[in-house]
């Protein structure tokens, strides 16, 4: 039972960054821009938050109101993430360039910038920024029971924020004027333009929302990884793109898809301690079998559900007023 508790807690910890970033990707694609730069934006967000944590660590605020400090870090990551994604928006909306160009550049820039900045601040070769001990929301007792394991172990401020974001995204996309306009820009920008919606403004907004969420997602990833910030998010930005397609561009389905993926991911992380899983005793490094499973499962589900998959019609195509 305790193992199951650990499994669920680890699943939630890994699902949170995926959900946040995939929802971000959804906002961007619903507005008509494919955000390939999520990986880079996550790294920048994580870098900013880790630096904020590091500087607040010496201050009095970290003792009196640690969660306020965490919130400051998360907000910083969101703001910088949105600003960073502006570069992608500018290249693909204003300059009408191929969207892979801006995305590739930002993905390449982010880890390099993170390493250079970390070195400049911490000294040469010091590539990791450690997360201070006051960051977790709660600390599980050593003899924690099933529920304590789920709710106290690896629980960070990003988890409640993630739940709020799922609810907010569902409402914004389906129940508000803004959501309808955003979706229309991704489906048929010319028609949206003809009724007076500013397509460019909508797309900038969509990309920058995705930047803010990806920034927060980067923080969530770094916290879930546990050992601090090491200038990487291990491909989660790209995974989030897959999760978004898997979730068919719909907030609740995205959340479900992310949980499913995270479940298999944490299964691989804990394959040694779960008694009922086959241990492949004749195979060396059987860990790699478990590492492969989440990706294979995702592929199988994608293949089975692909007929129903519906991407926003105008995604990836730069909108040109003159072509109307």
């Amino acid at each position, binding site marked *: 039972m305790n193992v199951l508790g650990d499994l669920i807690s680890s699943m939630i910890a890994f699902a949170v960054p995926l959900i946040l970033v995939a929802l971000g990707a959804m906002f961007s694609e619903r507005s008509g821009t494919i955000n*390939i730069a999520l990986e880079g934006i996550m790294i920048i967000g994580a870098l900013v938050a880790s630096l904020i944590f590091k500087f607040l660590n010496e201050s009095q605020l970290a003792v009196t109101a640690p969660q306020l400090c965490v919130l400051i870090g998360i907000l910083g990551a969101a703001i910088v993430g949105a600003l960073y994604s502006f*570069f992608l928006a500018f*290249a*693909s909306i204003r*300059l*009408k*360039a*191929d969207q*892979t*160009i*801006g995305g*590739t*550049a*930002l993905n*390449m*820039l982010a*880890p*390099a*910038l993170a*390493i*250079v900045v970390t*070195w*400049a601040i911490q000294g*040469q070769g010091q590539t990791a920024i450690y997360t201070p001990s006051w960051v977790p929301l709660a600390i599980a007792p050593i003899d924690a029971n099933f529920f304590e394991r789920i709710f106290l172990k690896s629980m960070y401020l990003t988890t409640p924020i993630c739940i709020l974001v799922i609810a907010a995204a569902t409402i914004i996309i389906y129940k508000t004027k803004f959501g309808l306009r955003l979706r229309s820009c991704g489906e048929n920008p010319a028609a949206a333009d003809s009724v007076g919606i500013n397509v460019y403004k909508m797309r900038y907004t969509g990309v920058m929302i995705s930047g803010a969420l990806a920034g927060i997602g980067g923080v969530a990833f770094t916290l879930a990884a546990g050992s601090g910030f090491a200038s990487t998010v*291990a*491909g989660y930005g*790209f*995974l989030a*793109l*897959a999760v978004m*397609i*898997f979730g068919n561009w719909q907030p609740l389905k995205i959340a479900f898809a992310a949980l499913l993926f995270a479940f298999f991911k944490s299964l691989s992380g804990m394959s040694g301690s779960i008694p009922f899983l086959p241990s492949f005793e004749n*195979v*060396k*490094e059987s860990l*790699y*079998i478990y*590492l*492969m499973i989440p*990706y*294979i499962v*995702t*592929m199988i589900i*994608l*293949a089975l559900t*692909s*007929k129903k*998959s519906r*991407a926003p019609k105008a995604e990836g195509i730069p909108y040109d007023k003159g072509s109307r």
Partner: protein
Amino acid sequence: MKNSNFFSQMMSSIGKFFVKIWNGILNLRKKRGFNSILASLFSIVIGIVIGLLLMLMIKPKDAFYGLAMMLTGGVSNISNIFQVLYTAAPLLMTGLAVGFAFKTGLFNIGAAGQYTVGAFFAIFGAVILKLPWYLDILLAALGGALWGAIPGLFKAFLNVNEVITSIMFNWIGLFAVDLIIANTPRLLDTYYGGADQSRAVNVAGVNPGAKLPSLGMESLSPYMNVGIFIAIILAIVMFIILNKTTFGYELKACGYNKESSKYAGINAKRNIVLSMAISGALAGIGGALTYLAGTAQMQVTKSISPIGFNGIPVALLGMSNPIGIIFSALFIAYIQIGGNAMQPEFATEVIDIVISVIIYLSAFSLVFKQAIDKYLLNRKRKQIDLELAEENKPKPPAVETPKEGDLQ
């Protein structure tokens, strides 16, 4: 008599060839391609300037030393020159893979996985099957093609976006290769007395015939081999396929507009799978060129090869044109070796920042090109204005005064 006739004919045709090239160079300035090259060079200069500014911010007193290393590190000694060529070869292959897929309307972000699977096939062929190097390269192409064809099949028959499938199969390929290497004792370094358990054996040590020929220049540098020439030849072959054959035309047509190419009788599904397989084969050969050189050993690792991902910037910088990719791969390899020379004053990642700025600026290339076009046009206009002014100068009175005969 016949022979000399043939000889002179050949000489004259060679002469004509050179004249043609020279005329081509002269005409280049007038062509649109020239402006895009100019725009790329402009991006490169700005990228390097930003790199310099960054270094000035971090360590002002070492910044210009860093710049000098970045720009000259690649030619600072003979060994570095060969290392540039060695680094460029796999980059050129993964760049070609991504660029070729771009040309056919596909985003192959899975070059990294295809590279890894190709590398594994090459090592397997060399170590277990004891095949010579050229067959190992063919095997690598086969492995890469297989790994590339899977996203193609998913896209063609199940309508799953190739970006997602390639990303997933990057990881699946990596972990599968890890698993197989870890479970094949004869592939491991430890089997041959090595110490590292998580490393495949050096190919050259086990099967000297699998090592890429060094063209007799091994004494100059262990990095010297035919890899870069193979890569360049393949780039030229890809250029010809894309631009001079019906097959290439069909592939490109599918990229531009799938529906209308279907209407024209092109089998779009088959072409998507073929494009991805060819792209994968190119990336797979890149893997072979890295490990058959005999200077690197494949690691059992949890992180995806950066060479595969770096194919994307190489392709973008080369504007997906195979010939452009030759130069962009050489440039990126050159500046990377320069980056190694910058250590320990600066992290090599400064180079990645410079490259990413250059890539980002290539999004501006259209704007740059328009600016250059405008400038040239204005200059031309001024010239024409001048010429017109010359013509319209007050002419000698003899012309203006009407002839007597006309009036009467």
